[in-house]
């Protein structure tokens, strides 16, 4: 089915199910309860999960398959965002042309940067990509102000031409992004008992694109092209003496992952039509590296999980402040309460980075294969309990784990 093996169809179905049912899955706690602050099922955050998931899936095609650690992918995300906003300013508020343009522009941009950077490998490649990204960031911040609107960021105004749409909305305000009339911000709220589920049009556009992006990545992983990319990662010398030049393969992977980043940037602007230079900063480039490594480099599902994890921490843990902590520990005696709050304080609220950092260290040290390896180990543990004997490992060579399981 769909040119995939059965196992992959299952994986794709799971991803689709998770994406489409996210408003339920991410809202397990009833409205108004103590735990409601851990709910992540609101449109803004869900959109971010999915958009960064797309970004990480694309990044993983480069880093996971070829092993080339790019440290400048946020530049493509930023370029995608600017392109999309320009499309909203000049053409119409429809998101389709905006997203298409952002993919094309990011693709061209990554072709240029990749062509230069891929002359080197290893750390030199990383530094070159970082240099290009910082250059793009600084240009966007200062010199290119006519295109990027500098530090204010590119925004929509009432004077934009929008040749295929209207400069102003029906009520005289700036029009909103839409897909053939469906406004991206429109949300259907469903009250079920104490629970509130929100179904946002923009989120579902992102989710559909995520599933498509995931499917595409899956096809690439299983294709001869994907096999060659993995060959590049393990032994370029052998690949050369096997009759293939590694450069075009790495460049293709770089451009594909750049286009994924452009798509993510375009979607970001489609959900909220503004673009700032800080989207291109090196911290943003580093974030996608963290997402991929945290989830599991070279696996299909890993980067999506990693993106979800980091965004969850960024948005949920950062909201826990001292008042909330005192609320949690209120039942305890005063002295103990203050002590506990004092201990927990550095790890939540503004200290969410610390928790994330510790978690990242733990994953890298104990689970070098990321969260996916953790999952696999758990699964193996349970399988062993099911059938304790009959496994004649000595007479069967160890089966190599297929990449991307």
């Amino acid at each position: 089915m769909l040119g995939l093996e059965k196992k992959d169809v299952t994986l794709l179905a799971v991803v689709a199910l998770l994406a489409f049912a996210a408003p339920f899955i991410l809202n397990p706690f009833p409205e108004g309860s103590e735990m409601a602050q851990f709910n992540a099922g609101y449109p803004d955050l869900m959109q971010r999960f999915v958009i960064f998931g797309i970004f990480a899936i694309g990044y993983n095609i480069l880093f996971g398959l070829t092993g080339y650690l790019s440290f400048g992918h946020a530049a493509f995300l930023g370029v995608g965002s600017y392109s999309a906003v320009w499309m909203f300013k000049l053409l119409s508020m429809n998101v389709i042309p905006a997203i298409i343009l952002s993919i094309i522009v990011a693709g061209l941009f990554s072709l240029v940067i990749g062509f230069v950077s891929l002359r080197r490998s290893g750390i030199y490649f990383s530094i070159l990509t970082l240099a290009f990204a910082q250059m793009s960031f600084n240009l966007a911040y200062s010199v290119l102000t006519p295109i990027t609107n500098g530090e204010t960021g590119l925004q929509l105004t009432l004077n934009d031409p929008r040749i295929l749409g209207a400069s102003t909305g029906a009520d005289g305000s700036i029009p909103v992004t839409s897909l053939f009339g469906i406004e991206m911000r429109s949300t259907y709220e469903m009250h079920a008992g104490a629970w509130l589920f929100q179904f946002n049009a923009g989120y579902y556009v992102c989710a559909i694109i995520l599933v498509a992006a995931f499917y595409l990545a899956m096809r690439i992983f299983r294709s001869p092209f994907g096999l060659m990319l993995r060959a590049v990662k393990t032994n370029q010398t052998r690949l050369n003496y096997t009759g293939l030049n590694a450069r075009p393969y790495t460049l293709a992977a770089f451009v594909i992952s750049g286009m994924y980043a452009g798509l993510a940037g375009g979607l970001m602007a489609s959900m909220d039509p503004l673009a700032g230079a800080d989207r291109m900063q090196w911290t943003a480039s580093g974030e996608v590296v963290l997402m991929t490594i945290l989830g599991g480099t070279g696996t299909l599902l890993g980067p999506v999980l990693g993106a979800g994890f980091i965004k969850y921490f960024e948005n949920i843990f950062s909201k826990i402040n001292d008042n909330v902590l005192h609320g949690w520990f209120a039942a305890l005696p005063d002295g103990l309460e203050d002590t506990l709050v004092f201990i927990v304080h550095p790890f939540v609220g503004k200290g969410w980075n610390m928790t994330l950092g510790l978690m990242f260290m733990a994953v890298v040290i104990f689970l070098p294969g990321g969260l996916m390896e953790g999952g696999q180990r758990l699964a193996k543990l349970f399988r062993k309990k099911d059938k304790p004997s009959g496994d004649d490992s000595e007479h069967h060579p160890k089966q190599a784990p297929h990449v991307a399981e």
Partner: protein
Amino acid sequence: MGILEVKGVNKRFGGLQALSNVNLSVQENTVHAIIGPNGAGKSTLLNCLVGKLIPDTGSVMFDGQSVLGRKPHEINQMGISRVFQTPEIFGDLTVLENVLIPCFARRDGAFRLHAFETVSAEKEMMDKAMQMLEDVNMVSKRHMHSASMSRGDKRRLEMAMCLVQEPRLLLLDEPTAGMARADTNNTIDLLKEIKEKRDITMAIIEHDMHVVFSLADRITVLAQGTPLVEDTPENIKGHPKVREAYLGEAA
């Protein structure tokens, strides 16, 4: 006219004349061994044949075409495959994937963006790779992580990766270096089998005389960058110049 013709090749590294006026002619469907003491320029010569080094002067013709100035991957596509001193395989991949890559490389010839085909659905390539694995007795190991295999198996796999491309000339750089006796004998058997079953020309660089004399049809002796003699194994064995070069005996 041999399939490989090396004429007047010189190569200098700074003050060291690594190769001086090397002439070599490898005939089709023979095994040609190049022997010589350490520092004789054997590896330099081989690197000049595969495009890793470019000779200062001279010509290297393969099947009537010059290989000079071409990149290693282009030379491979002309029909020259190379086995390294330490097996160069795709260690992170399985044995089957290792053999599939050269199959695709030969089919495609150069970069192709086959991003929407599925490897496991490419029946022709799969059959070819499986057939090759059968020929080298590695079918049962096809799902093994290739880096975790023994040195002998890695060598066997590397040979399979070269042979599946059906090269016209197979270059072997000390194929038994650092191997245990049993692995060496296995490798000799494998090479003999290849020689009998396939129309293939081989050029072997080797230290181990046991290997050389059990395989080669012709032997060239290199010393200090110059070919001393070229003859059949029988004649080489008793040649005074060879003994001099190897043992330092006064002739």
